[in-house]
């Protein structure tokens, strides 16, 4: 329950690329093969540990359909991290990345960490976008890149946790103004203690309580 930090994430990208499946795999550790269209936005949450600190991730999974675009835009500003997802078996979802990125950059705070995700890596036989292309795109736009599979859970944990790590590092560097909640970051009720020994015990408490969240 108690956490050192709380990060707000959004998941964006074309419809059908597997945004909801990524979230479901991350929060519930299961895969739903049937495509169930997301209406507007759905919420999910999970606790992770970085650098020995409990970090709560609150994730808003947005609808990919164009009709919901104006609604999902409202979520950019308050998010600390975004997972921008495309489908490696559908080139057009990769081609739309520029639009998504422009949209995100325009409406979010400048420090938002964006992780580029090529999903459905298990369907390698139907691949239309090479891994190198994803890497190149990420490099060009200063994003972190990863290929995942919501079906096999490959790299799903890593995608969410690495994004959190990036945000965490930015906090350590003092880039984020953590007192402004509009950035999508909240400090836990228990401030992370400076004394390392106390910090250890505090985190243990956090872990035991974490179960009921």
């Amino acid at each position, binding site marked *: *329950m108690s956490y050192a930090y709380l990060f*707000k994430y959004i998941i964006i990208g074309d419809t059908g690329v597997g945004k909801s499946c990524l979230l479901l795999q991350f929060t519930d550790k299961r895969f739903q093969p049937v495509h169930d269209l997301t209406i*507007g*936005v*759905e*919420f*999910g*949450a999970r606790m992770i540990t970085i650098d020995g600190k409990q970090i709560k991730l*609150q994730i*808003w999974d947005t609808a990919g359909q164009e009709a919901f675009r*104006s*609604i999902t*835009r*409202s*979520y950019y*500003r*308050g998010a600390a991290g975004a997972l921008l997802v495309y489908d490696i078996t559908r080139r057009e979802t990769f081609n739309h990345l520029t639009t998504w990125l422009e949209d995100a950059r325009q*409406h979010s705070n400048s420090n938002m960490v964006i992780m580029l995700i090529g999903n459905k890596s298990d369907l390698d036989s139907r691949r239309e976008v090479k891994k190198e292309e994803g890497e190149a795109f990420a490099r060009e736009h200063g994003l972190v890149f990863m290929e995942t599979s919501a079906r096999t859970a490959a790299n799903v944990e890593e995608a969410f946790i690495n994004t959190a790590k990036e945000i965490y590092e930015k906090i350590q560097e003092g880039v984020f103004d953590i007192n402004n*909640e*509009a950035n999508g970051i*909240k400090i836990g009720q228990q401030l992370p203690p400076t004394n390392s020994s106390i910090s250890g015990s505090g985190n243990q408490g956090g872990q035991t309580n974490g179960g*009921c*969240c």
Partner: protein
Amino acid sequence: MDFFKSGLKTVLGTSSDEGQDTPTGAETVEKLVDRVTSSTLLDDRRDACRALKALSRKYRIEVGAQGMQALVQVLQSDRADCEIVSYALDTLCNIVTQEQFEEESDNPTVSMNVGEQFTEMFIKQTENVSLVLDYLEEYDFKVRWAAVKLLTTLLTNRTKDIQEIILVSPMAVSKLMDLLIDSREVIRNDALLLLIQLTKINSNIQKIVAFENAFDRVFDIVRDEGFSDGGIVVEDCFILLINLLKHNTSNQQFFKEGSYIQKISPMFKFGSSENEEQVWTPQKVSNVHCMLQIVRSLVSPSNQQQVILSCQKTMKSCGLLEALCNILMGSGVPADILTETINTVGEVVRGETENQLVFSNVMAPSNPPKSALVVLLMSMINEKQPLILRISVLYSFQCFLYKNETGQNSLIQTLLPSSNAEATITTGQLLCGGLFSMDPLANWFSSVALMHGLISNREKKEQLLRVLLATTPGSPPVSLLQQCCSILQQNSCKLQTKVGILMLLSVWLNDCPVAVNYFLSSPSNGVSYLIAEISSNEQDENEYLIQGLCAFLLGLCIQGNDNTVMGSGKEDLCQLVVKRIGLEIYTRKLGEVSRHESYSRAGKNPQIRVDSGSDLLLDYEFCKVFKALEHTISALVNGYSNNNTNMTELTLSSEASDLVGQYKGIIRDLDKEIKSLKVQVNDANSSNSDLRQRIVELEGTNSQLADQNILLKAQLTASSISNGSPNDSSVLNLEIGRLQQENHLLQSKLAEEKDKTSLEMDKLRKDQEDLLELLSDQENKITKLKNQLKASGLTVEDDDELDEESDGISIL
């Protein structure tokens, strides 16, 4: 007003007070509007705006019709001057409001919906709304406040349209949320009202508002305002929370995951630390009422099952359930808070085993201690308690029993004869007491409560049959079921009592053949009562309901019938229906239940919602049972008369009949197999018996033959004996004599021959001996010659050797 009037005079340059010369309101407005649009001086425009604002209360239609465009123009081009902008916003607000001003009360042209019409005009250009939204960012108090008020009014009039506009304008919700941290309370409080309007119904807006940290903001305000002791602002905060949570799964999850349940939980712990009595001001009552609504919005039975369960678990673990139970048992709690708390506790425990257990273990602080359930049920069957309280107790009791076999068991257990007679009152006793009390409402409450103890629990249905009641001293005890039947048949039996008992009996008899048999064979003559009720000709909506319920119960008697009660088998009862009631009438009466208005009302929601006690008729769970069985029963009864077969088939639900279909197939296959096997067995048997017969025959012939054999043998011996008969012996003796003579003759001949040959033999022997002698002489001669030859130096080959050689050659 005088100031304004004189101001107007100077502005308009009129000096005359005379009626004829006084310009009409419309003319004045026209001039002012003209000035706002065309004057180049800001001061002039500002003054005109101020005057329009003043006039807008009395001449709303004139100002609105002529000035709206001008006012919008001010908003567009005079951004820099806060004063004129605030006048424009205020004027617009006056025009579009639905509120009627004192000044215009004598103006008949101002109809009720004039504000709405102007709202429509204003928002036709969606940019106008964006314009107002922009002014929310202006820090100046007057401007920001006016913008908030105008937006609230627009939202109130045209909620859906404005919501759509706000959804598509980027950052609009963010701007609105920022108002909540405005240090000026007036703005913050009005922003709350604005958000309450904004978050009505539209779940997308609700989610965005929640995403923009609404929960944190609102809880901060609640804390600053003193929690439940705070004023109306706290109530507004809670109303906003209710808007955000009701029917919004995503936000409910967010609320739970964000540990906000833990934040609201301590607010329910009032008065526990201090001993002083709680002061329940009307505002506090409203606040706590809202808090309970928030809790219920999270665990309402209409929510997603998963969300309900996880919230229920959190509510138990963070102590919220305990706090609620304390309110339940606390003293001095106002009645409507108590009622709502009972409802809330019900929903917090509904379907969650552990929470139900906690609830059943709550003890009331009485002496001797009673369980809270007992205390609550006592209020339920008490006529003097307010109706809403009694209803809430029934609801919470239903929630307690929902999917709670343990709870059902312990309730029925308290009624069983085996349980030892304790001094303490039990839930079961209370319900029995209520069932037979003089108050029809208590009858209804108790029968429904008892009915919920039986739902989907066949074992308890059977056990409850064992319950015996001592009605009047001296008379033998009667069973509960029997007693129910006799109450039904009393003339004094009221409508609600009948409905309650009929529902109880229906659930009791459903899926429990033992109970059906018991009902059919009981001396209280239930069936004839049912038939009489169904065929009665009362013309009243509620009478129809009773008839329908009776038809349903009779149908259940047919459906659950296993034909063990003589004279009341399936067919007997169907025959009764056909002959005494008539099929069409029966079907129509059965349908009366679902046609009754209370059916649709009760079937909607597990929670009981009625305006008055007399509206309490059907129950939610009963409606579910009825819905599931109505069709089956009518098909069953109709099917009987149509083709008399397939009766059992029709008594089954579609799933069951599918299953039956499968089994039928299997049985058919097996049948075929059995038939063919039977044929085979018959064949085998017949061939077997044939064979047996043949064996017998053969054995017979065999023994015959053996007999014959023996006979023949005997004959044979007999005949061989009879061969030496005296007739033949003389012939034979002659023959023997002749043969003996012959024999002698031959013997003498033989002796002659013998002599001859022995003579010859002697002669031959002599010859042989002579020859042998000669041979040995010759051999001696040969050896002599050989030796001579050897001595003379010639090699002589042996005869043997020569023989051998010639042998070898011959072989070759």
